[in-house]
């Protein structure tokens, strides 16, 4: 077990452990208990928000694995979500309604797309890779819009709520539990990836690809693996999105969605699973916070019209501010606060990393 606030570790096992000090274990147990009990304490509006945050967190965690851990820039995130959602819709269209089939199908399609984008990543790097993913995003959206018009669903395609065994998943409380549970699962998965062999390989590739190759890491394999893993999880998130909303439409998957997810991992803190979750919460809740602020200010009646572009702009502004002033994101702030408490009365100024 680690001592000294988590810094002093005496065994290899404790270095690897995800939750190491007693305080952390207690805090985690308390959090889990709070999440379980939440539906009894709050309104369904809050639960719906929580469910949205959970779903966003799944997507953000997947993107974090690709961009934060492995350092591969992807501008096609919305395309993967769209692919998962439309796979679900396609399965429903052709008579298959089982959620398991939908999840499996979405995962397969996501993996295939990830493979298609991953292979060019071996030749392309940085900006050029980002552009390839952006192009793929547009192609996926085109295919989706073709399907949508072919099914005659010009405003969107509706999906009936899924049945798991005898239980039909509908209603805020059910979806809250399902999504929060799956988000927790994804968080464990992502956090575990970070300390696994693949995670270390990805971080090596992210930091210095040539050096990683020269110590024997199979760069090609791990890059493709990063894309495939990330896109699989993202597609599954898309399928969940389709089931929860009960409705899919191409308009919901524009480039702005990709920007939102990138904002989540940047605002949260690049490379950190906790950061992805914090960022997802921040970005998802931001429009509601702005709504509340505006309602509190009691502006005139016509003000709602200005709200949409203002929300639009505010979130972009915040992302820019974080990029310039707080590159380590919310996790950076959290760590500074935590360090201040842990190290008091000493002050430790860590080296700023050169990257």
């Amino acid at each position: 077990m680690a001592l000294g606030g988590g810094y002093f570790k005496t065994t290899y096992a404790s270095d690897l452990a995800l939750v190491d000090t007693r305080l952390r274990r207690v805090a985690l147990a308390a959090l889990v208990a709070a999440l379980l009990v939440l539906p009894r304490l709050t309104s369904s509006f809050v639960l719906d928000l929580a469910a949205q945050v959970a779903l966003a967190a799944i997507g953000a965690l997947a993107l974090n694995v690709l961009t934060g851990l492995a350092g591969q820039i992807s501008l096609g995130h919305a395309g993967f979500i769209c692919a998962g959602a439309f796979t679900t819709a396609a399965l429903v269209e052709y008579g298959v309604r089982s959620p398991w089939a939908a999840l499996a199908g979405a995962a397969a399609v996501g993996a295939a797309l990830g493979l298609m984008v991953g292979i060019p990543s071996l030749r392309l790097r940085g900006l050029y890779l980002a552009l390839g993913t952006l192009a793929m995003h547009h192609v996926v959206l085109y295919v989706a819009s073709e399907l949508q018009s072919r099914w005659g669903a010009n405003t969107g395609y509706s999906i009936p709520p899924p049945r798991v065994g005898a239980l039909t998943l509908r209603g805020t409380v059910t979806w809250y539990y399902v999504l929060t549970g799956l988000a927790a699962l994804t968080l464990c998965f992502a956090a575990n990836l970070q300390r696994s062999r693949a995670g270390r390989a990805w971080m090596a590739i992210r930091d210095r690809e040539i050096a990683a190759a020269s110590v024997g890491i199979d760069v090609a394999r791990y890059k493709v693996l990063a894309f495939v893993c990330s896109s699989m999880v993202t597609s599954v998130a898309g399928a969940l999105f389709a089931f929860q909303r009960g409705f899919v439409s191409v308009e919901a998957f524009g480039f702005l969605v990709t920007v939102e997810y990138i904002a989540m991992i940047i605002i949260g803190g690049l490379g950190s699973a906790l950061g992805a979750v914090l960022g997802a919460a921040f970005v998802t809740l931001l429009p509601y916070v702005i709504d509340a602020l505006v309602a509190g200010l009691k502006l005139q009646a016509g003000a709602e019209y200005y709200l949409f572009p203002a929300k639009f702009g505010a979130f972009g502004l915040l992302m820019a501010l974080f990029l310039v002033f707080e590159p380590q994101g919310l996790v950076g702030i959290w760590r500074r606060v935590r360090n201040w408490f842990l190290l008091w009365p000493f002050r430790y100024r860590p080296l700023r990393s050169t990257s």
Partner: protein
Amino acid sequence: MTPLLALENVEVVYHRVATAIQSVSLQVPERGLVALLGTNGAGKTTTLRAISGFLGADDAAIVSGRVVFLGETINGRRPHETARRGLVLVPERDKVFETLTVQENLRALVPGRGREGLDMERVLHYFPVLADRRRQVAGYLSGGERQMLALATALLCRPRVLLVDELSLGLAPIVVESLMDLVRRLRDELGIAVLLVEQNAGAALAIADHGYVMEHGRIVYEGSRERLLAHEDVREFYLGLGGSADRRRYTDVKQYRRRRRWF
């Protein structure tokens, strides 16, 4: 007579924690040709960067001391301002614009207020090879030609003091000799003062009047050319000219033999 360029007790720290050079004081007088010698990692390039203002790019800063050029403190001035005042650096790497032709390279600069009379005609007079290769893309020049192009462009910036970083790096001895000769001619005929940072001490001391030796971020010895050439440690470790025959133990190695300097 006041020197053109002087460093007074300069200390440079990287990333706020690692001291690269400490208590470095040196002077470049009018029409002087000063050599700064040292092995890899001694801090020579950091010194040059501190003079020409490039520390910010590497998250380093001058934390004490000052750099004085023409009587003015230039700590932390922006690099292009320092260049325009007549303090021009010929860097060690990335010294030419590789996608531009030789002709375009010679025009890709803003001449400073340093001194008069250094126009294209006069400069190309020293580098006839470049005149022949005007239309060639600079990326395809040989090492020696590149070095000449770098020197020529530096001259076109009208320097009062030229800072040359590792002129001899990667060049054949005969090319090094001709380049060093060229530098001495530039000083003699154009009156430009030169600070020559070199690992190749022999080549540098062949033309310099005065020299400084740096080790581990400090100046450990300075003197005129004759004193340096005669100094035992310099001869042994920088010029490779033999040593005493009776050295057998590690304590005979220079760190332990040098007298302690208390200031």
